[in-house]
């Protein structure tokens, strides 16, 4: 079966890379799932979770990451997710995210609140 070469890259580091059979991400116009042999695509992502269904050497499983803004580009079986900030679910500090959520609610900062929500949701899906 065809596979996707996935690369999840943040501005200052490469976060994750490997094989996958499907990647689900949230673009500005809604969730999008990409499977091998998709048409070449360039999409703008919004703050949200990225779910990668892994295959190959990394084994069957899911990798969930919280992504804050960025892009998704797919061509020739190679999918790259570029984000200014990207965190894998098991890297997320849940306590810190909860504190950030409290603070965002107190300051009524809707952007920060969304970010914290996405972080918590991504962390919850992993555990």
């Amino acid at each position, binding site marked *: 079966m065809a596979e996707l070469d996935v*690369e999840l890259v*943040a501005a*200052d580091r490469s976060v994750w890379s490997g094989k996958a059979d499907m990647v689900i991400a949230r673009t*500005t116009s809604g969730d999008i799932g990409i499977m091998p042999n998709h048409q*070449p695509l360039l*999409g703008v992502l919004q703050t949200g979770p990225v779910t990668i269904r892994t295959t190959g050497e990394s084994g069957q499983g899911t990798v969930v990451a919280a992504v804050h803004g960025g*892009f998704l580009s797919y*061509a020739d079986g190679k999918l790259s997710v570029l984000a200014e900030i990207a965190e894998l679910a098991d890297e997320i500090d849940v306590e810190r995210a909860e504190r950030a959520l409290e603070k965002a609610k107190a300051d009524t900062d809707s952007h920060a609140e969304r970010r914290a929500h996405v972080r918590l949701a991504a962390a919850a899906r992993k555990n």
Partner: protein
Amino acid sequence: MGAQVKVYKRRIKSVTATKKITKAMEMIAASRIIKAQRKVDASSPYAEELTNAVTSVAYAATDVKHPLTTEAPRPTRAALLLITSDRGLAGGYSSNALKASEHLTAQLVAEGKQVDHYVVGRKGVSYYTFRERPISDSWTGFTDSPEYSDAKAVAAPLIEAIERDTADGGVDELHIVFTEFRSMMTQTPVERRMLPLTFSRSAEDSAAVFAQGVEARPLYEFEPGPEQVLDALLPRYVESRIYNALLQSAASEHAARRRAMKSATDNAQDLIKSLTRLANAARQADITQEISEIVGGASALADATAGSDR
């Protein structure tokens, strides 16, 4: 001990103290180069992917006009971003970057463009303020180890300026001068035009297109649309280019400082050596003089006693 010897001893002591400092700075800089280089490497996948994406959009959506990609018919204003260091003692690092920026400024002025200066680093800022030349914006305090947020802060007013109309004080072009880190021994100041984007239309490039046909690049689908993608993509592209320039400059700065401090340490070592020789010679001269005084005194005494015996 003679006065001359004392003077030499004092100078040796002071040069030794200076040598200790320069040696320490050399070692600190050497360890930071590695760190800075690692940061450059870590940031390159993002920059590469982003460049790929930008090139793809630009090729695929040639019908879309965007302020960041279209060239003004008659550019009249240009922004120049110069990256220097916050601290000195780095040899010719900052002055080389400044020289390159002066060269570029002269060139742009000759082309009939007005140049707005944007400066990163305390050295560059003081160069401009000392000459009482206007700076549009400046940033200091992070040239040692820049973070992505610093690059964002630098990019924001530049993007804003390029999106504004030239009549309202906006700019048509964005140039950047930074120091490229080639290797531990070579760092060269480079001038690049960042915006409007230039797509390499070099000979090899056209040859590749000729060989593979124009259809070599895949036809992209855009989500939500080509214009929105470009809108979102280009600021990120500028930020990542600035981030990369800042990181390379930081690595170059540390490399330049290491080299400057190494030669300072070597010079101090040479100075200590020659001063020690001079001090030894002076001490020897003192001893010789003392001996000849004693011998002279003794023989004068001997002559005097010999005279009284008679």
